[in-house]
């Protein structure tokens, strides 16, 4: 090829530049035609990953719920037993309070009787003095 002096380039150089441009456009065309819907594929991959994670968490949650339900049942049984014991203790306290009340009443009666006894003893001694009789206890 002779010198075509087009843009200061020889024929071979023009061919080279044109072939470079054509190869670039053809490579771009191939890339565009072959463009895969990668977003769909990556969405599927992400979905499977998150689905696996969800499955693991779901199974863990199920077993944890079952464990907690068993523990809850045991605690409910213990609470019931403790409530029964509390009821019994309340009855015992009630009986104790009643007995304390009776005891306090009896003590009052005893005190009253002791006061009466003392009074009558004083009266008796006064009588003995008036009559000039020695009380039997002092005679002995």
């Amino acid at each position, binding site marked *: 090829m002779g010198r075509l002096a087009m843009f200061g*380039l*020889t024929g*071979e*150089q023009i*061919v*080279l*530049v044109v*072939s*470079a441009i054509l*190869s*670039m456009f*053809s*490579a*771009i065309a*191939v*890339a565009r035609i*072959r463009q895969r819907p*990668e977003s769909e594929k990556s969405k599927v*991959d992400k979905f499977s*990953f998150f689905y*696996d994670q969800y499955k693991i968490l779901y199974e863990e949650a199920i077993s944890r719920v079952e464990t907690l339900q068993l523990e809850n049942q045991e605690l409910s049984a213990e609470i019931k037993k403790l409530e029964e014991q509390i009821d019994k203790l309340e009855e015992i306290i009630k009986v104790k309070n009643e007995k304390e009340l009776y005891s306090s009443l009896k003590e009052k009666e005893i005190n009253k009787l002791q006061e009466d006894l003392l009074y009558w003893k004083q009266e008796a001694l006064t009588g003995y003095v008036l009559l000039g009789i020695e009380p039997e206890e002092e005679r002995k």
Partner: protein
Amino acid sequence: MDKKNYKQKVFRERVVNNAATMRLAALSLIYGIWLQLNPSILTRYSIYELLESILNPNLISYTHVISAIGLLIGVLFGKREVKNFFSIAITVLWTTMGISSFISPPPNAIWIFCGFISILCYEAIWVD
């Protein structure tokens, strides 16, 4: 599957699915480095004269190396746009070299190898 295993799985799949592109990147990288280490190749052989008349001789090796590294980055980090860009760049480089060796005197067989490498470039764009 935990997050670490998932990332490793994705990385392995990327390398396996882009095998043709990885080979192309290795080829261009080695070629570019070889030209850099032996710059006399570009001046000694007449098939490079036509390319040298258009481009700076060092630019040929640099573009090969940079395109190869860009391609590797695009594949390993999953950057599709980067991979496509440098795939096209390498395709242009090898096609141009093939045409250059075809039309440069004296008759030689380099254009056959460059031509097949160009076909590999198109195949890498198509398959990967």
